[in-house]
């Protein structure tokens, strides 16, 4: 089970020719440009269209995003319809409530080969949504039976596996199949060590392959240490290269998804670090965050600013040809071990995922979902790297230096706020701003 589905040569060639979403991403990558993408969703059609047009017009190589609202995510389409009727505020675009017709018209008026649009949702049981998306001619979407089930729903994994299998088969049956991205590299946004993130991304990629898809992307979310993240993306690329060789795939990096810096300077700095990581690691696409993140849902203008900032840093980084060194913490070996040993549990990837979580062989730290063992624990070590404190029943070695003391509420907040602290520190002491204004005097003003 550790080898991908084999295909004859001409079928391989056909499979590698992905849809227009992938073509756009590969073209940009070949030309040395990072594709940047916002998180953006508005309830009404006019604002959603305005947002997409603003992203299309940004000074950046972008793809558009339509983020769905939380009611649509949990298949509560009646509440979404009611909100549209009453004008109640939603936190995203209710695609099913608007219907495929209105959605197709919206996308048709803004998207094109140079500006494909991805629908982002977070739904564990998304078949009705996938029906609406295929009917609306959506270019790309994302998720997966684990990554959209464990963190975002109460559905049993077995049901999510069944639903996602049907969704994949629905996509595969279309004349022009949608691109599908695994969200497996983003579990809970933070405090999940990279080995498990890489393994879940690859396992979901294999699941998509098993159900007939060949136009994929694999994700990884920026964590707490640039060297460890560089190592993790390299591990993901290597493992995906070995296991998904016959598919058309690329890597999408996410700017940190956990507790976000609260200052404007701090948020741009963490975004900058993620852009440099994306370029150094050869990632093809980056999902950005904005300085509004810690406080509220960003405006259209804030999203465009973040995209243009990311694009300019990406150009800078590409021109530098920096040779930053990855950490050597064994991410690839850990991920490969988790993938291989999981696949041994059952004849299909879907069944193997169900069994692996059932017996705690895969265990996402702190995840409260009833099908997650929740025995594993992670911590941020003094060097800023994410490490295992408890492996639970996962087949992993936990370093002897690992903190075995149970984490306190305050300790948890400190770990969750690690990046917030790291990037906000200087602005909150005003030292950074003084340094910016009077660079010659910075050292005398004591930036520590």
């Amino acid at each position, binding site marked *: 089970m550790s080898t991908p589905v084999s295909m004859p040569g001409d079928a391989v060639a056909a499979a590698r020719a992905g849809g227009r979403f992938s073509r756009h991403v590969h073209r940009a990558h070949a030309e040395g440009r990072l594709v940047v993408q916002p998180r953006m969703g508005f309830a009404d059609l006019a604002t959603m269209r305005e947002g997409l047009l603003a992203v299309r017009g940004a000074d950046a190589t972008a793809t558009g995003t339509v983020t769905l609202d*939380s*009611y649509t*995510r*949990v298949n*509560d389409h009646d*509440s979404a319809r009611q*909100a549209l009727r009453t004008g*109640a*505020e*939603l*936190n995203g675009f209710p695609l099913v409530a608007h219907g495929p017709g209105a959605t197709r018209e919206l996308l048709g008026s803004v998207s094109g080969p140079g500006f494909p649009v991805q629908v982002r949702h*977070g739904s564990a049981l998304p078949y009705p949504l996938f029906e609406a998306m295929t009917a609306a001619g959506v270019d790309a979407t994302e998720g997966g039976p684990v990554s959209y089930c464990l*963190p*975002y*729903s*109460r559905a049993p994994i077995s049901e999510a596996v069944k639903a996602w299998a049907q969704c994949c088969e629905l996509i595969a049956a279309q004349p022009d199949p949608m691109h599908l991205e695994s969200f497996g590299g983003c579990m*809970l*946004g*933070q405090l999940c060590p990279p080995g498990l993130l890489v393994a879940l991304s690859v396992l979901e990629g294999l699941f998509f392959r098993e159900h007939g898809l060949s136009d994929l992307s694999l994700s990884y979310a920026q964590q707490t240490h640039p060297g460890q993240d560089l190592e993790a993306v390299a591990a993901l690329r290597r493992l995906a290269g070995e296991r998904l060789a016959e598919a058309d795939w690329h890597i999408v990096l996410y700017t940190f998804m*956990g*507790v976000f810096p609260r200052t404007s300077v701090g948020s741009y700095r963490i975004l900058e670090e993620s852009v440099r990581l994306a370029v150094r690691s050869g990632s093809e696409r980056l999902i950005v965050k904005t300085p509004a993140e810690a*406080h*509220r*849902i960003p405006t259209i203008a804030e999203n465009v600013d973040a995209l243009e900032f990311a694009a300019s840093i990406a150009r800078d980084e590409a021109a530098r040809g920096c040779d930053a060194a990855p950490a050597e913490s064994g991410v690839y070996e850990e991920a490969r071990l988790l993938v291989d040993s999981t696949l041994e549990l059952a004849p299909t990837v879907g069944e193997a995922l169900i069994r692996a979580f059932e017996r705690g062989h895969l265990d996402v730290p*702190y*995840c*409260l*979902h*009833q099908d997650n063992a929740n025995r594993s624990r992670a911590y941020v070590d003094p060097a800023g790297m994410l490490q295992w404190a408890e492996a639970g029943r996962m087949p992993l070695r936990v370093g002897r230096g690992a903190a075995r003391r149970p*984490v*306190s*509420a*305050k300790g*948890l*907040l400190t770990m*969750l706020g690690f990046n917030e602290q790291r990037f906000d520190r200087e602005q909150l002491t005003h030292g950074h701003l003084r340094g910016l204004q009077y660079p010659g005097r910075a050292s005398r003003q004591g930036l520590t």
Partner: protein
Amino acid sequence: MSQVMLPAKRFVVSSVSSDAHMWNLVFLQLLLEEQGAQVTNLGACVPDDLIVEECRRSRPDALVISTVNGHGHLDGLRLIRRIRSDPDLAGLRVVIGGKLGVRGAENVVFAEELALSGYDAVFEADGGMESFQEFLGTLDAPAGQSALAAAGVAA
């Protein structure tokens, strides 16, 4: 943090039906457990029925609703109306906190409506944790007034 609660208070911690955020719930559980409480954590995306069922079954000292996806003013309102319409739960202490709308600092506009609809206390975003600690200190007092005073929300 030095507060002692004897005998152990029992809490049900939960999100609302459409909210998938989890770290706020993990944190609250640890915070309450450190103060000697017993916690049943229902997790994310909890349907109203399940919350009502659990509260009827386990009769907690308080139900703590935490939500940060911006739908709290909608889902939280529907939930508390449902809870207060159940005669068995009319006297249950119920509090809600987090990011209750999508308006950032302006979310305070939702607090009053939530309190008027039956929450014993409403804690919005940044100032919320301190008020929540004060609320915990009032749990031995009769239900009602003291909690509202702690939260600074006029009902």
